[in-house]
């Protein structure tokens, strides 16, 4: 009998609860920009990340693959990536409040995935098996989505700071947000990193589709390419110095919403290959 406390769903729910608690404790920071109770909400966030890591590991073991076989797993993995990236970026870039925002996004998305059990449909493990390149493709896709998620968060922070400065809003919260200049710099870096990961992932996916066109649906390929195309246009406009500031931040935020919606077609399981029929001919 499986111990209920170590069942993966218990772990997923525990991590979601910890994210919710973290978001709750982070709200005072967001409300008045106070630096307390930072240790408390960070501990909750780290605890949620740990439980989610274990749950995803158990799920991955079961599938013998990175858990991205249905929208539930995709959302959980992306949230896990966003939280992990946020924890790292806070240290490297000294981005105040990014973990508070991560906690809120993590709480919202993990709860959303858990209250929709139909999203967690079962997939035969054998259907997920494939060449190692498929695994690389999947992992790169997850990394790119997580980076785009982090980019959406920092873009939101940029929009809040920009709007506050333009609107002459001076509460303590806006003072604690990172500066416009720093956020612009971070957003640019995240976009480039995420786009590189997505490009590699889509490239491997396209090559896989060319090799096995019946295994991967055309719609899945088209959606992935369209998403890549949208981000490519963003990168090009950025390099041509035509997209910057609040327009750039708004674009990144909106594109991530589109990316989340694209999870449904792209995380559908591959088609089952038709088995060759064997004709039995009775001897005369």
């Amino acid at each position, binding site marked *: 009998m499986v111990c209920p406390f170590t069942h993966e769903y218990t772990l997923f729910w525990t991590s979601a609860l910890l994210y919710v608690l973290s978001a709750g404790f982070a709200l005072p920071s967001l409300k008045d920009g106070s630096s307390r109770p930072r240790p408390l909400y960070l501990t909750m966030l780290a605890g949620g990340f740990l439980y989610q890591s274990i749950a995803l590991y158990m799920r991955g073991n079961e599938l013998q693959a990175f858990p991205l076989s249905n929208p539930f797993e995709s959302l959980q993995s992306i949230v896990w990536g966003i939280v992990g990236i946020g924890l790292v970026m806070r240290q490297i870039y000294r981005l105040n409040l990014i973990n508070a925002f991560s906690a809120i996004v993590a709480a919202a998305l993990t709860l959303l995935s858990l209250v929709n059990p139909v999203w967690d449909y079962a997939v035969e493990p054998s259907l997920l098996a494939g060449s190692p390149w498929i695994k690389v493709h999947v992992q790169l896709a997850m990394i790119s989505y997580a980076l785009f998620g982090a980019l959406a968060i920092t873009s939101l922070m940029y929009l809040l700071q920009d709007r506050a400065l333009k609107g002459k809003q*001076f509460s303590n919260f806006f003072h604690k947000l990172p*500066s416009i200049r720093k956020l612009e710099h971070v957003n640019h870096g995240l976009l480039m990193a995420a786009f590189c990961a997505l490009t590699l992932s889509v490239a491997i996916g396209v090559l896989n589709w060319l090799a096995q066109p019946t295994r991967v649906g055309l719609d899945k390929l088209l959606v992935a390419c369209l998403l890549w195309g949208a981000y490519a246009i963003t990168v090009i406009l950025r390099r041509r110095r035509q997209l910057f500031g609040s327009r750039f931040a708004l674009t990144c935020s909106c594109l991530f919403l589109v990316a989340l919606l694209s999870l449904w077609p792209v995380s559908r399981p591959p088609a089952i290959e038709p088995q060759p029929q064997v004709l039995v001919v009775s001897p005369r």
Partner: protein
Amino acid sequence: MTQPQQSQLTLVGCSHVTANLSTREALITDPDGLSRCLGNGALSKAGFQEWLVLNTCNRLEFYVVSPAAQPLDLLAGTLSSAVDMAAFRHAAYTLKGAEAARHLFRVCAGLESQMLGENEILGQVKTAYADARKHASAGKVLNRLVQKSLQAAKWARTNTGISKGQVSIGNIAAELTQRVCGDFSGISILLVGTGEVGTKTAQALISRGASQVTVTGRNVEAATAIAETLEHGNVTAFSRLRSAIANADAVISCTSAPEPVIQRELIAPLMRERLDRPLSLIDLAVPRDIASDVADLANVYLFNLDDLAALANESMQARLSEVERAKTTLHTRADRIWEELKPKLEPA
């Protein structure tokens, strides 16, 4: 046989509340003489068992432990060569016991400062305490009282809003610039005009780490003089305003021009060339130096004197709303300490 007189904690002092600036400026007639009196134990010889002198630009206060019924008379007799005691007596207030303790707690927390909640007073009290310890004039009572008042002040600043926000124009401008440009160490400031407020604002940014300051103005001599007073300052011709703005991250404008000197037509093409570098504009002039439609440009953040004043008022209102809460707790703590210290007051 006369009963030994009980010592008493007394505060005798004057501050910005009871004496205006010119009076305060003239109180200490011989600063060296005052230092000598304090250093050679004159107050101890006069009968003060413990003493601490808090001398700042806004107050001159003597915290003493003494059995004397009128410590002010003793002070007058001892310090008359260094302090204008007539002016001091005229402006002085005297508080005893718990009231003196409460006053010190409020002083340390910045509740008695001209700028409510300011932090400088904490350092000044620490300096006064260090001097008292050097002179061995802080005993059982003052040691404990000062230490506890410093702790209480720290509590008040952390747990109430009496120090939150900025209330001076220079600090507000610095904070706004920081929200736009981030770390000061890499940013370049352009000071347009030679107005005093602009210069002080530039100094506030320099004190936060800004390392490149360029001054420009129609009056070259005045601009040069200001550049020389500013750390890392240099001067550029007013005719080169466009290129100076192109290189700046923050522009502080304070000229006496009757019309705006910085128009949208000047800024818009510059911003197309610096898309990844936002521009902070602080307009401290009346009439305004920077046209208001400049604020509509992307990546440009314009703040005028009204904005800064509104922010200062907002911060001050927020601080004022916290005063009663801070006072209540500080007084409770002061009363508790006073009850502890009362038995330690020795008879003379």
